[in-house]
């Protein structure tokens, strides 16, 4: 019984990871690994993680996110100072030339407040990212398990 449970959990962790591995491009930017975690109900905020690679010579910045899945999506940054974690708003996230910027656990992330419905594992929803220079692009965000630590992609990024 325990093994069946564990097997189920393992499957749940890795199931449907393919979508989060898709990459979309916008000029010099390529955006991939867009994922979120399942939520318990709609009363708690969801998270949005993504990876942005700027192959160009000019810096850019992520200035906003929008999604039909939440009425109040915002950029936040987890900051740990003197052993205390807080989560201030980020006005924008620098996307420096020649670098990959991650919205990831423990750093910058999108916080999706006012969910229109609970996020269920296996679901996906669109998020439109707006950049200071490159403009806007929409990515599909895959909802992984609440316990997931990220999508499993073959490119091992």
């Amino acid at each position, binding site marked *: 019984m325990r093994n069946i449970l564990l097997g189920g959990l393992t499957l749940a962790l890795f199931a449907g990871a393919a979508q989060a591995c898709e990459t979309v491009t916008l000029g010099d930017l390529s955006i991939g690994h867009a994922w979120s975690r399942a939520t318990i109900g709609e009363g*708690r905020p969801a998270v949005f993680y993504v990876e942005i690679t700027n192959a160009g010579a000019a810096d850019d910045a992520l200035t906003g996110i929008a999604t039909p899945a939440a009425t109040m999506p915002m950029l936040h940054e987890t900051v740990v100072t003197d052993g205390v*974690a807080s989560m201030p708003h980020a006005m924008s996230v620098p996307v420096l030339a020649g670098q990959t910027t991650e919205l990831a656990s423990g750093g910058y992330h999108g916080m999706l407040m006012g969910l229109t419905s609970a996020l269920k594992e296996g679901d996906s929803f669109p998020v439109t990212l707006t950049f200071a220079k490159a403009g806007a692009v929409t990515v599909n965000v895959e909802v992984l398990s609440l316990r997931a630590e990220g999508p499993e992609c073959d490119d091992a990024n």
Partner: protein
Amino acid sequence: MTRIPLLRKILWGMVVLAAIGAVVVQLRQPAPRVEAAFRPEFSLADAAGKIRTNAEFRGRYLLVFFGFTNCPDVCPTTLAEVAQVMEGLQTQAAKVQPLFISVDPERDRRLGLTEFTAAFHPSILGLAGDDAATRAAADSFKIFFEREPDAAAPDGFTMSHSPRLYLIGPEGDWLRQYDYGTPATEILADLKSRL
């Protein structure tokens, strides 16, 4: 004759400079952290309203995290690691009790504590006492948390808190902390070496 004293002066000057440098280096080093043994105490309600205290967990290790269920980033990441640790312990899992102590107890009781902890691992026990008991528990663990007004956050506030995991021994002694981001494999290896 005059050149020798000059050389001596220079050499003595260098000695003095080196001594000053050594003192400066010494002063700049942070004081060694004294982590004297202490026994954190708590008396907090579980999801069913039953008061749970540190005393009932004697004989087992406690893996303690202070967080809140509305926390989208740090808390799920850490509890997912706790879940991995508990699975990795396999037959030794019964020797370790993971605790999630809410620093936002009123709201967490309302939103549901058990469904949150169970989503990570069935063994995680969620505790949400009243404000005074929560503050007392945090003080006892020597941790900080604070309610921060934030007009943009749900209900108009968010919580800042210590994002570490704390390990309490079978005798109730505070043993160590695992900093935020410590890989589950590292925590697991450390625990296994103690069990």
